[in-house]
């Protein structure tokens, strides 16, 4: 192989290495933020409903501080190369979706849509060819939230809140039937969806327990 050809290859590779280093630097920061967020949200299991508001309020600033990092990642990605690099941050973005959707449910009882999630995370329309919230990542985030809610249903009862499991049950069933509309291929999303039924079952058992004992009016 002649040196001219090697030079061509090296130039191209150096460019790629530059991009991946820039992204990795940002992702490292993002990892830290995500750990903080997930850490705080872990406290919902031991927080009575009357102090839930302040707990969630304390997460939001950290969540919003991720916007800056996502913006830095978006500017590091060359045009049309979103799918080339997204693996580097997809775990983080799924956790962020999880956090945003969980907060929304705990605050307002509803499902945070993709566009609302994008808005919360400060993902801009003009990043379209460099950074978007993919459907796949959004759905992964939702599944993460359902996993968490099945635990929360149990723990809310322990904390004396018998109404919460009812709300969770309706909400999760709604999401589950949404998932059943999708034709998923055999990938990690499919496998995680398949495990959702166990969460559903767990929540239903809690609902059954509290209804049976007339702890809630049915």
């Amino acid at each position: 192989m002649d040196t001219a050809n090697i030079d061509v290859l090296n130039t191209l590779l150096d460019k790629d290495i530059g991009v991946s280093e820039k992204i990795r630097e940002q992702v490292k920061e993002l990892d830290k933020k995500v750990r903080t967020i997930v850490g705080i949200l872990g406290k919902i299991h031991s927080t009575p409903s009357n102090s839930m508001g302040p707990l969630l309020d304390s997460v939001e600033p950290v969540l919003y501080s991720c916007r800056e990092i996502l913006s830095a990642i978006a500017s590091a990605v060359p045009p049309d190369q979103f799918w080339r690099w997204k693996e580097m941050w997809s775990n983080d973005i799924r956790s962020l979706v999880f956090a945003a959707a969980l907060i929304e449910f705990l605050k307002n009882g509803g499902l945070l849509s993709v566009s609302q999630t994008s808005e919360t995370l400060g993902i801009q329309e003009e990043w379209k060819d460099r950074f978007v919230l993919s459907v796949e990542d959004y759905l992964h985030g939702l599944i993460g939230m359902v996993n968490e809610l099945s635990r929360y249903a149990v723990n809310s009862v322990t904390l004396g809140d018998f109404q919460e499991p009812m709300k969770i049950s309706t909400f999760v069933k709604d999401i589950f039937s949404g998932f059943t509309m999708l034709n998923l291929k055999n990938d990690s999303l499919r496998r995680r969806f398949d495990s959702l039924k166990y969460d559903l079952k767990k929540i239903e058992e809690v609902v059954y327990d509290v209804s049976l004992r007339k702890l809630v009016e049915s």
Partner: protein
Amino acid sequence: MPPKTAETFELFRQEIDESNDRRERLIKASRDVTNISKKAIFLLHRIILEDTDDDRGRRAAVKGRSKLDEARPYFAAMRLELVGDRFWRHQRQVSPAVQEYIEALSFAHYLEHGSIIPFNDTQAAFSDADGLYFPLTVSDYLLGLSDLTGELMRFAISNISRRGGSTTANDICRLVRDCKAGQFPHFEQFIPHIRDLGKKQSVTSSSLEKIEAAAYAVMVRGSEFDLPPEILEDLIQQTTVRFDIGRRDDSLYNNGS
């Protein structure tokens, strides 16, 4: 299910289906291109061994490339599916085809020019009047070339008993060694940056060893005869040609009578 959720998931379904269907179409096209490329490689091997004249490399390359042209309509169709950010979304589905195509292309190039096809020439061969079919990655180029070494090994060995065969085998050894780790390391230096290159390079190493073993055998056995190499080659060739056309028994009878 509240209508809003149903609506949202309906949109997801459309997007997921669309992407999965595109993926399937690309996998099919990719398989067809791989098939054509494999046939082109076999064709090259066949033609190059038909004759021993100096022009055989060029002749083989011309025919091989015209076989490879059959892949063009597939690439043109793939281009439409890989517009904008879709290329990187589906890169993994098309990359096996691209690698196989480069393997065939580089083999034809080697037979004609005796060298490794440069990246720029590969890009040129991967385009039509509208430009590149889709981006050609350094990774696919290097992985395709890694596979080329296997073909070179096959060629070196099946060619070794022919006129000039051991010289060709030695040239190939040099070329493959040079690719692996030349004055400044080539393929080896790219291994940390290119997924799967390490694996393919270990295959290259074993191909190289096979070529080296064949070159060694010719050298050692050749030394037993006190003849100039050209005459020795003629001798070998005559013998193998007789084997080829099954006259071995006849000649035995003739000698015996």
